[in-house]
């Protein structure tokens, strides 16, 4: 196990520096003078130009610039937003709970629907239910989620008027952010109706963001269950006369879950990519929308900082998943 940890860290650290190099390069490879590009159509005076040159350190040599950047990153300094003038890291952590809440709900939705669906499909392999389920999983997997979001809005917000179209909660309610999670904060606020409103706002984005993970989890659960169900110990369990519920739900599921857990862990990147589209469509004030808005506003320090934070998160989660996997499955440790 120690070997695995050391091996994974030995790949993690160079990758981390590589990622910082990429995000460092980002502002510098913008075509043209980055300061002029950032200023956009407004233009700027010569003094302001010199001041900005100095502020970003563009008047120094590249290695020095990179060193300064890295030093800042390691101390949690990601620069200032050009638009709000607030530190990028402050903005990131202010908006991150919204994305986290949405992602967690999407994942819970995907797991709660996907694992039972996959198990049932495997148990009734080849039957109508299996085929219908796997066909829908493939449709879900092929779904352009931005279109899926628009369709759900047409049906549930437009025609049925069940769910709101955007935001995290009705403007009627106001309470201070304690945890940043709307579901928890609305309960803490004690205002009647606030929690219900938060739930209503969450439903459609959760379904949209959870659709592709749901399809992936259902497919993976089915195939790993099929593999496990053909093992000898399952036959033994059957011969012992255990109930099908116990065999499928306990004996088989426990081992069938190992690859599924990995798939869940590794879909963090997909989830964050999907959050960009989902948050943009539902005006969900999280990291994804923040990134898209910043790209359009040419707020490059934000894009740079956000890119680094998101990559870092994906890397850390992958590292944890790998280590957990090694912990669950000793075979992998020997690599």
């Amino acid at each position, binding site marked *: 196990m120690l070997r695995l940890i050391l091996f994974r860290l030995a790949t993690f650290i160079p990758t981390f520096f590589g990622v910082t190099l990429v995000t460092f390069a980002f502002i510098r490879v913008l*075509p043209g003078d980055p300061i002029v590009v950032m200023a956009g159509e407004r233009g700027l005076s010569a003094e302001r130009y010199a001041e900005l040159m100095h502020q970003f350190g563009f008047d120094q040599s590249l290695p020095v610039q990179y060193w300064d950047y890295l030093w800042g990153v390691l101390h949690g300094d990601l620069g200032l937003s050009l638009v709000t003038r607030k530190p990028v890291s402050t903005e990131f952590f202010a908006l991150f709970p919204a994305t986290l809440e949405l992602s967690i709900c999407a994942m819970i939705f995907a797991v709660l629907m996907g694992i039972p669906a996959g198990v049932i499909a495997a148990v009734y392999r080849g039957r109508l239910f299996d085929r219908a389920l796997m066909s829908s999983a493939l449709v879900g997997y092929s779904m352009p989620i931005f279109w899926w979001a628009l369709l759900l809005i047409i049906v549930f917000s437009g025609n049925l008027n069940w769910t709101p179209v955007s935001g995290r909660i009705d403007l009627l309610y106001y309470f201070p952010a304690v945890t940043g999670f709307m579901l928890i904060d609305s309960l803490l606020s004690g205002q009647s109706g606030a929690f219900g409103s938060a739930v209503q706002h969450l439903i459609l984005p959760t379904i949209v963001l959870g659709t592709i993970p749901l399809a992936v989890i259902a497919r993976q659960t089915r195939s790993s269950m099929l593999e496990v169900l053909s093992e000898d110990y399952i036959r033994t369990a059957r011969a012992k006369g255990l109930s099908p519920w116990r065999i499928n739900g306990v004996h088989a599921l426990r081992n069938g879950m190992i690859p599924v857990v990995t798939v869940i862990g590794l879909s963090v990147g997909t989830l964050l990519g999907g959050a960009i589209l989902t948050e943009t469509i539902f005006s969900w004030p999280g990291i994804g929308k923040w990134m898209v808005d910043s790209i359009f506003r040419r707020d490059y320090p934000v894009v740079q900082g956000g890119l680094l934070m998101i990559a870092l998160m994906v890397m850390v989660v992958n590292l944890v998943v790998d280590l957990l996997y090694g912990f669950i499955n000793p075979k992998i440790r020997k690599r």
Partner: protein
Amino acid sequence: MTDTAAPVRPSPLAEFWRYFSENRGAVIGFWVVVTLLAIAVLAPLIAPYDPALQMRDKTLLPPGWVSGGDWSHLLGTDPLGRDILSRLIHGARFSFFIGFIVVGIAASGGILIGLIAGFAPRWLDTVIMRIMDIILAFPSLLLALVLVAILGPSLINAMIAIALVLQPHYVRLTRAAVMNELPKDYVTSARVAGAGLIRLMFVTVLPNCLAPLIVQSALAFSNAILDAAALGFLGMGAQPPTPEWGTMLAEAREFILRAWWVVTFPGLAILITVLAINLMGDGLRDALDPRLKRS
């Protein structure tokens, strides 16, 4: 199965088709893709109208079968009075163009780098794989979005960006396949027979690594179409008035509650295309790579 112990081994193509056609979904997917491809190629001949033609007296006309619709515009018209069916037919060209070019760039680059990594000394291999890890650390859509922000929003730049983010998958797969083939006897014998490095890489080893790469290409093709549409939707891909499906959706967004058809059909076109390619990809995997076979 109608196979009766034929003495002659069937040609690889026939054998491939036999396995491929066992998967009914794959065959359906295949024919849908062929049809869509034909539509794309023949777009100017099939499309009833010019995709850019704005009929100002016929804006937001509903589809033919809906009351108020007009059968001469089967799928209705958009807010500028352009025929949606014609735009979709022309859009097919962009989607396949995107798919082929992106997969072409990503596959050729990725396979070459993967081959080099597989044959290279340890240190070079490590460097290459770390670089791929770095690219893979970024969610692909986000990285593509940022690259397009750097290069400027256009279809070509979106394609370059998507090819770049799809490429590491090819590198990893090729390298793994090469590593798997290298210790085999036929490689050693080719080496002993005096085959040079280039010959070993491209003639001896590469053809035996193709199966997973072809399967990956189907996946990459559908990903490329989805990502390009997503970038178009976010305003960072093809620019209006290009009839690219994602861009059409972006233009239609503000009309979703008034005119469902402007939103429904472009998305449906994306879904059908991607689904057909994915169905085909599943069949390809079953036929080419028995180890990956979904039981």
